[in-house]
């Protein structure tokens, strides 16, 4: 009993082939879109590579790029096939290729779905990468003379200016690390020496933040040093002051930014997946209806198209049997060959020559 059979007249078949030809070309365009989305995501992740610790983040954009390219090629081929399917003679060329093509495309659409789901699952890895990456970037902020870390100061400053954020979880993160290099500290001054001594690890910690934390919307000039000291500044209360520095942490800002991108890309990929699936269904119907036309012999007749010839269970069982027998291909089966394991009754050779009476000369 066929799964979802539909009757196709000749005109319906031709119409289906033409529509599928157009849809396949649209799918090539969506494949290019997937490719571009993959490249965009790769570029965005690489831009902030300094701030992300090493995690498997490149797998998602690489997957999207690969899927996009394969989609272009598969749908290009599909378009060619559907274009030829209008004419029954040309269909004969593609007859043997179509079923493998449909199976390949089915598995390919599964990988598109996997790509879409990966976009949503990247969240956890991203969070971890950002936590560690930002923490390290802030720690090496002062090391502008160490090769390999000399651009971290600039990166962090530009990040805080662009994303309007300060520190990892908040501005207080800057109070816990030394972000002023020893090169610019006057060790002969008493207060510097006192501060260094008062800290267990000998770090110069202060309640100040870099200038990039300053909020542009503040009505007063930025207060970036002695932030928690109300008496150091006129008419200032750090607990109620919200506009002086950026309140948001950069971890949250970056996470929100990338989550938005990932969700948009994931949604687009899901829509493309649904589209590909519908095109695949159309191609399957076209293939089965054309094969039935060939079976019946008359190119103008009405034929049935279906998704599967038998029900799911029977198709699965028959496919499973085929795979099982594939494994036994090299073995010679005892049921098949009548000559195996039977004692040979044919006697040849000098031992067993039967005694034949010699012809007597008469």
């Amino acid at each position, binding site marked *: 009993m066929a799964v979802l059979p539909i009757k196709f007249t000749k005109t319906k078949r031709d119409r289906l082939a033409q529509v599928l030809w157009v849809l396949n070309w649209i799918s090539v365009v969506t494949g290019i879109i997937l490719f571009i989305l993959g490249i965009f995501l790769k570029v965005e992740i690489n831009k902030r590579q300094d701030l992300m610790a090493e995690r498997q983040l490149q797998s998602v954009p690489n997957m999207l790029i690969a899927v996009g390219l394969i989609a272009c090629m598969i749908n290009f081929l599909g378009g060619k096939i559907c274009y030829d399917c209008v004419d029954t003679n040309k269909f004969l060329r593609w007859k043997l290729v179509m079923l493998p093509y449909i199976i390949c495309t089915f598995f390919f659409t599964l990988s598109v779905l996997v790509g879409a789901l990966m976009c949503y699952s990247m969240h956890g890895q991203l969070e971890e990468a950002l936590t560690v990456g930002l923490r390290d970037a802030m720690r090496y902020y002062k090391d*502008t*003379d160490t090769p390999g870390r*000399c651009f971290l*100061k*600039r990166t962090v*400053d*530009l990040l805080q*200016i662009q994303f309007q954020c300060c520190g990892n979880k908040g501005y207080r993160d800057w109070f816990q690390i030394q*972000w*002023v*290099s020893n*090169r*610019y*500290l*006057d060790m002969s001054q008493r207060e510097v020496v006192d501060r260094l001594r008062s800290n267990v690890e000998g770090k110069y910690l202060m309640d100040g933040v*870099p*200038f*990039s934390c*300053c909020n*542009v*919307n503040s*009505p*007063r*000039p*930025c207060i*970036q040093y002695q932030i928690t000291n109300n008496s150091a*500044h*006129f*008419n200032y209360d750090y607990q109620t002051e919200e506009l002086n520095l950026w309140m948001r942490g950069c971890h949250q800002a970056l996470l929100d930014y990338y989550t938005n991108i990932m969700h948009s890309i994931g949604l687009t990929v899901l829509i493309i997946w649904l589209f590909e699936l519908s095109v695949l269904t159309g191609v399957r119907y076209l293939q089965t209806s054309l094969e039935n036309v060939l079976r019946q012999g008359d190119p103008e007749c009405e034929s049935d198209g279906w998704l599967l010839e038998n029900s799911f269970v029977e198709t699965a069982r028959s496919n499973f049997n085929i795979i099982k027998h594939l494994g036994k291909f090299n073995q010679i089966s005892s049921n098949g060959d009548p000559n195996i394991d039977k004692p040979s009754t044919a006697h040849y050779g000098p031992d067993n020559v039967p005694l034949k009476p010699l012809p007597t000369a008469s």
Partner: protein
Amino acid sequence: MVVGKMKFTFQKRVKLAQGLWLLSWLATLGGAVTFTLGCFLKTELRRRGEVMDNTDIHCVPNTLMIVGLASMGINYFASRICQDALDPGRFPRWKTFLKPYFGCSVFFTTLMLISVILSYAMKGSLETSLKIGLKNGIRFYKDTDTPGRCFQKQTIDHLQMEFQCCGNNDYKDWFEVQWISNRYLDFSSKEVKDCIKSNVDGRYLVDGVPFSCCNPSSPRPCIQYKITNNTAHYNYDHQTEELNIFIRGCREALVNYYMGLMNTIGAVVLSVFLLQSSVLASVRLLQTSMEAVAGQENVEIETEGYLLEKGVKETFMEYVDPVLKLLLLNQVTPPEAKPEAGATGTTTTTS
């Protein structure tokens, strides 16, 4: 004295018409590009409109937009004309249309050239406008509580960070202006009182700049206060220090930015102008060569085409006279001069 005379065989006419059709569609695209560039330039100028004193510079994008739209119309008609040109039956209906069409086209094409020249010539006006605008912006930086000026601080801060510049001519402009509001000055403190007393106008001037002047590429944390005081900071010499704050002035940065933009746009519009002129010349040649064919039995004869029938000056007067006549009609003519004006009017229309 005919200008630009050329002989056209039938084949040449056909080729001219085909080439012209393609060229006119390219020129329509060029017109659309000009319009888009005009819109883009206007948007960019408006984005920084708060630091510009006047809007004189806006004449450049306005002209570009007008010329772009006109060019699209001109080239659309050019394509229609050349489609009908080779058909002797349909061509005569364009006859009355052609003279005003050429007049308008030449006018708008010249306007296109003028807009390119303007985009280079308006540099001085832009610079003056920015000078005054930035001076005011810096002066009102501290007035975040005055309605109408409360966003100056934000504008200037954003500007300095985006264009990587500080002050009007350079960072020293901030030393001459009180950019810290009195609301945040502790008047009971001795040093504040001393500072204000030492200044003639009673302003609180510091040798410091706002945080937006800080250069993120500097290897050391930003020094924004006591900039000229070497002893206030360890291992610091303000005369050799280049990376601490932005050295460039915002006026120079903005002028460079806008002139770069206008140079690129000028180059593109110049090429569109050349395309447009060639389209117009081709339409004229096609029209004049087809006019010679009209009335002949054999359409495939060789004809002559020309750009101008008379000399340049005479043709110019021919076009300008109707416009002048229109203007003269508004004036009250004295009664004895009326018949003469009427006679000259009729002679000019018949020539």
